[in-house]
């Protein structure tokens, strides 16, 4: 069953060129982020005589208001934005999967309790809470990863719960139960592996959401703090110079847009591959 789904995915990627393009774009960004130290300029060295230069052969993306090379800053920004995206996704997918699987597997009162709590949690204005917590706590990558991760797992656990309920009645799960395996083992060895495709879809779409949230928080000045930069905090900085040098806003914005777009698109391609019914449309 699972292998069939993965084969479908590969063939889907092969036939749909746009999905391949999305993968290539993300691949380039990840490589660029990893290779950031190879950039010809230092991202934090200030040259006050080279302020707000337009893009040129020497400074590919121009320079910012402190004369720092904007291309190098964008590369280091990619490190922050992408790693926040991936790490916060891991936090929320882990919590969401465990809670969803437990809730779906045990059912009954525990399920009702967990699902009602999630309903309540989802009625909180989570973005505003993120802002508040960021303002209270020491800003930094770890803080922001935890805050976003801990406040965005609810929808994932709902999806996982629904899948768990449909999987737990299958023969192999019944067999495992009859043969006396522990509940822990059944959940982690039998149920979760069989819903991996669903989790992959949710995780891909989740990264897109996380990157967007991080950039909004940093844009408002409550995420990554200077001199470190993420794409969002670069936008925040560019806000003040939009009349003088609009390219300062252009580059980080385009990077956020294309990254989020690629993740959203891939998420849909994965979903289409894993749910052949949607595929046909």
């Amino acid at each position, binding site marked *: 069953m699972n292998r069939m789904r993965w084969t479908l995915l590969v063939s889907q990627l092969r036939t749909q060129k746009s999905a391949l393009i999305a993968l290539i774009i993300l691949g380039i960004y990840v490589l660029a982020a990893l290779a950031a130290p190879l950039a010809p300029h230092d991202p934090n060295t200030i040259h006050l005589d080279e302020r707000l230069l337009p893009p040129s052969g020497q400074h590919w993306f121009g320079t910012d208001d402190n004369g720092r090379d904007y291309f190098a800053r964008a590369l280091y920004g990619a490190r922050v934005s992408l790693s926040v995206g991936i790490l916060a996704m891991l936090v929320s997918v882990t919590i969401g999967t465990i809670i969803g699987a437990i809730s779906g597997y045990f059912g009954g009162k525990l399920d009702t309790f967990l699902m*009602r709590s999630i*309903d*309540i949690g*989802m*009625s*909180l*204005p*989570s*973005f*505003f*809470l993120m*802002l*508040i917590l960021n*303002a*209270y706590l020491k800003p930094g990558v770890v803080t922001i990863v935890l805050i976003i991760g801990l406040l965005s797992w609810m929808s994932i656990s709902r999806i996982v719960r629904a899948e768990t309920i449909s999987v737990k009645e299958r023969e192999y799960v019944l067999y495992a139960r009859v043969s006396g395996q522990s509940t822990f083992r059944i959940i982690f060895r039998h149920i979760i592996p069989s819903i991996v495709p669903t989790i992959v879809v949710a995780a891909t779409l989740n990264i*897109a959401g996380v990157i*967007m949230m991080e*950039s*909004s928080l940093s*844009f*408002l*000045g*409550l995420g990554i703090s200077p001199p470190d930069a993420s794409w*969002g905090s670069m*936008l925040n900085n*560019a*806000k003040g110079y*939009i*009349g003088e040098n*609009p390219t300062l*806003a252009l580059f*980080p*914005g385009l990077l*956020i*847009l294309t990254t*989020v*777009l690629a993740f*959203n*698109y891939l998420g849909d391609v994965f979903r289409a591959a894993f749910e052949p019914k949607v595929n046909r*449309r």
Partner: protein
Amino acid sequence: MKKYLLRRLLQLIPMLLFISIVSFALIRLAPGDPVMSFVTPNMSPDDIERIRASMGLDQPLYLQYAYWLQNVLTGNLGYSLINHRPVLDLIVERIPATLGLMGCSLVLSLIIGITLGLVAALNKNKPIDRVLSFLSYIGISLPGLWFAMILIYVFSIQLHWLPSLGMRTIGVNSVWDVILHGVMPCLVLSITSIAVFMRYIRSSTISQLEEDYVNIQYAYGSTSTVILFRHVLRNVLLPVITILGLSLPEIITGAFIVESIFSWPGMGSLGINAVFSLDYPMIMGITMMSSFLLIFGNLLADMMYGVVDPRIKSMR
């Protein structure tokens, strides 16, 4: 229906209690001693203790919560630390601007989203559908704050067509002026929902058109226009109300960002400013208010769905 309404209203109680606990926790979690904002240099330690006692801060935590809840229930959300006015008054002043912005954005997203979704569905897999589908991906992935900056650059800085800040020009008091100020914030707030609605309308129209009843209508000799507007559209549009409820958190989040970029004098910018100045009573008030908005919006969406779709009513 009445029973259902009652049950839903009863379910609100634990939700609101939980939200009140979170809001209360926000003050207690806040770094620093709340008394310190009232302390002046020439106060003795005894004075400080007296203030602490007068604020009830020497009581155990659960009692403090009870007092606070009692105040909240009587409409007293405390006083802003920044300008010492009642939090509730400040929020109520700002609500019309926020609701206006949200309302305008909902109407705009519904009109554009439904139209584009239908156009895409009726031209399924044709070039126009592909273009619209690509645009909808951009709409979903577009960082609102960046879109706002582009709009400001083009329409305010380059073309001088639209004002980029605030809701009114000082000294001008006309509706037209407010509309001019509102165009860009509303557009930025709508862009994601337009894309969401459009995608939903497209896929559900396509699946409805494959239903048996459509073929039967054709067999009876109906034209496709009649089928589309009299039968298909009904089934497609009803669930939009639910999507509307689901997109509320999105729109509330958007309002915080949009209002702060455009200095729109609504609840969102009030909240962001409160976060920056660590104005705890205000932060708490905004948290409660936006949760209320979210919960009641969802309740309203559910209710409306039950009202417009008789099938749901009988199911309950």
